[in-house]
């Protein structure tokens, strides 16, 4: 199996070097702010997975990151570098919440399902802005998604401060709470919700689709050389739209589940950077949907540990953002150096 071989050789080697680079970087950073690096890393590990509560909180944090990583990896299979998951989270949450507010008296199972479907379709539609601009005019998708992210976040801020603001929330900008029929089921007597299992199943399904089917091969060809693919009769534009739409759906799913299940109401700043963390994870996994699974858990746990650090070590939670950035820098650096090494050794 080529997959096994690549895992045994390049991936493991790459990962080992990346881990060393990241540990050195974070260690240096901790030393620079006057903390004992090893002790602090241990503390991070403990507050991420020290007990049952910490572990389930890490899983809660992992879920949207996992979905956003998949939402980034899928368009990446055709060669797109999109950072749109962040905005798609907001749009999914926005329209999903809108559906809840207009049908708040509904009962049964269907409201929750319909709300999720609406959210996914809305986010898919939102992703059509960069997708169409790319497919029709060749506008760089990275820049467009970054701009549309700000617009999406502002739209949510607008509704929670304005038309959808819950008068009962006493000045706090948020919508009305999601009633029980709109709450996705949770597990382990914790905040871990159905989204986690859904995301894991989707990751496996996507992995099989992308590696085994003709469609996966089509995307590989179009990524490797669009001109060769088009000359062979493959549909570049159509697949750009398709992968972006499916990616949008995944991020939209993350958005509405996070809102309905974890926060219980729509408020500003719901994503907490999950879209960007997802991008980071997809990059670390080199868009391999199976490798995304452990890596999103790693990043999710790291971010969840931020809250623990605040209590245990009197450090602002933003330190986990710094570590996340160092993680990305370290991996890129290790990857680039390895590439140079490979090239110089033929």
């Amino acid at each position, binding site marked *: 199996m080529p997959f096994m071989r690549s895992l045994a050789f390049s991936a493991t080697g790459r990962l080992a070097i990346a881990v060393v680079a990241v540990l050195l970087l974070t260690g240096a950073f901790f030393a620079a702010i006057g903390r004992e690096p090893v002790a602090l890393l241990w503390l991070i590990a403990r507050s991420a997975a020290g007990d049952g509560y910490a572990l389930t909180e890490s899983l809660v944090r992992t879920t949207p990151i996992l979905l956003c990583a998949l939402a980034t990896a899928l368009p990446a299979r055709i060669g797109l570098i999109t950072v749109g998951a962040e905005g798609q989270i907001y749009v999914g949450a926005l329209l999903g919440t809108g559906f809840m507010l207009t049908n708040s008296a509904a009962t049964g199972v269907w409201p929750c399902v319909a709300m999720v479907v609406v959210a996914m379709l809305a986010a898919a539609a939102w992703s059509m802005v960069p997708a169409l601009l790319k497919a029709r005019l060749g506008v760089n998708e990275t820049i467009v998604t970054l701009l549309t992210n700000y617009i999406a976040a502002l739209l949510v801020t607008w509704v929670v401060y304005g038309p959808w603001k819950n008068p009962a929330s006493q000045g706090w900008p948020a919508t009305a709470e999601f009633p029980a029929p709109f709450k996705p089921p949770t597990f382990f007597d914790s905040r871990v919700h159905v989204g986690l299992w859904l995301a894991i199943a989707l990751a496996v399904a996507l992995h099989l689709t992308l590696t085994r089917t003709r469609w996966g091969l089509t995307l590989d060809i179009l990524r490797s050389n669009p001109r060769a693919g088009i000359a062979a009769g493959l549909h570049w534009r159509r697949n750009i739209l398709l992968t972006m739409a499916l990616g949008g759906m995944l991020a939209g799913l993350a958005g509405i589940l996070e809102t309905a299940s974890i926060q219980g109401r729509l408020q500003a700043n719901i994503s907490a950077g999950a879209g960007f963390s997802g991008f980071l994870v997809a990059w670390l996994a080199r868009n391999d949907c199976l490798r995304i699974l452990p890596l999103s858990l790693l990043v999710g746990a790291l971010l969840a540990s931020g809250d623990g650090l605040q209590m245990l070590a009197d450090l602002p939670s933003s330190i986990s953002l710094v*570590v996340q950035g160092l993680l990305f*820098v370290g991996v890129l650096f290790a990857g680039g150096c390895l590439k140079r090494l490979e090239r110089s050794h033929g």
Partner: protein
Amino acid sequence: MDSLEIVFSGFLISALRSATPLLLALLGECLGQRTGVINLGTEGQMLIGAMAGYGATAALGDPWLGLAAGAGAGLLLSSVHAVLAIGAQANQFASGLAVWMLGFGLSAYLGAGLVGRKIASFDSVAAGPVAHWPIIGSVVAGMTPTVLIALLLVPAIGVWLYGTRTGLRWRAVGEAPDSARAAGVAPAWIQMQAVLAGGLLSGLGGAALSVDYTRTWAEGMSAGRGLVAVGLVIVARWNPWWTLPAALLFGGAEALSLRLQAADTPISAHLLHTLPYVASLVVLTLTYVRARDSGAPAGLKAVMDR
């Protein structure tokens, strides 16, 4: 002065003031993209510059030192992009995002103690006799030093890029690194210089934002200006002279949204705040609609179209 003139000059000065941080970042990004390097980390560099600038001003009491500290911090952070994207030849978009995350995290972490602190900042520039000229007089009188610096940098960089030997070499590197190398120019070295210059200018822009424009520090306060800069370079067609109108587009949209808000428009302030981003996006799209040959440096095209 009649009231129309007051409204117009008032609008112009607020557009200029809100465009200044962006204009500085835009000039820096323009230099980088001219040599074929795109830097999404501009956003992070602005943030670290804003934080460092505000911190230095608060600690030392001198806004000039604040600007210097901001520029230095931006330069320092951009060296990460230089090492990753040029040294290690990592993907430029990924490297830029990494720098952005790092800048966001670091500025939030290091700036946690600065929230709510007060600083002494710049006064308006002394306009002298110019103050009595119609329109221009009141615009100049409303300017702060950072606005003036940004406005002077536009022709300085424009003349330098098109009128000097080094400028010619920078342009050659962005167009055809291999030809430039054949001509005895080291492309990687020049790209590094351009990225660092971009870091310096975006850091300065960030400091102008926190020290002069808002006169506060808040986490993530640049609110996408650095990313807008990356997009607006395309609108400005990689020409330093065009960065001013491009930045004024954003600044004008922001000034307009603040104006409408102050005038008690029924439209929500948050919706109005989308205006600069929508305007940037629309103009960006139009540049692609109008001309297939956008005037992009060939080396950059290779990065953007892949």
